């Protein structure tokens, strides 16, 4: 098994899985979706630290 991972533990990669992971680390470009998520997360983190209310709406 080239991947070992437990819910509350570490992730172990070896063989092809480790090689592919290293390629991701070294060659992936910036991720716009992740950047957008971070921007949203910063607003939420601020509200968490200040106990601010939020509201969500669904149609």
């Amino acid at each position: 098994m080239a991947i070992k991972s437990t819910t509350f533990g570490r992730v172990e990669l070896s063989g092809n899985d480790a090689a592919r992971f290293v390629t991701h680390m070294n060659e992936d470009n910036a991720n716009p979706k992740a950047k957008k998520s971070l921007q949203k997360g910063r607003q939420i983190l601020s509200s968490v630290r200040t106990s601010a209310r939020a509201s969500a709406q669904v149609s």
Partner: protein
Amino acid sequence: MKIDVDYIVRILLDTDSVNNFKTGDIAFQPLKTFLQKQAKEFQKAMVAQTYVCIKLDQGVDNGKVIAFITLTCSEIDIRNGYTLDDCEHAARYDSLPAIKIARLAVDNRFRKYGLGSLLVSLTTAIATDEIYPTIGCRFVVTDAKQAAIYFYLTQGFILLDTKDNLEAPEPIMFLDLLKL
């Protein structure tokens, strides 16, 4: 017709009501069981931290949990060695630090409000703005259920696209914080 829900996001409290949390799917039962029986214990043991969305009743926090995410410290161990182009000296270490999303669930009566997305975004911000500046953190990682892969992709996570991982019941997905 639009329906609003007022909520706050905070750390799980010992007094929070978790017994009425509904996942709506037997496949998610372990998540419900974790919230009801283990989340507070893990928190007290300092093993994991759970953040919750609390539905406000006329502006009052009655501790009604409608979504939660549980985070813990983790690491990614790359057994056959690696070289980081951005930090070659890191290659002498056995592993790289990470935050793991151990549990994530939204009460099925409160889906479509974007609460799961909100909690993942919160995790990214905690890792980037609080943990990395104080102790170092390179990744957010999770063992995603097959049904959740698309969701994590929309949050910017990468699916390790090897045969073993793609065929795994809960494949590894990760966010490289250096790329943010």
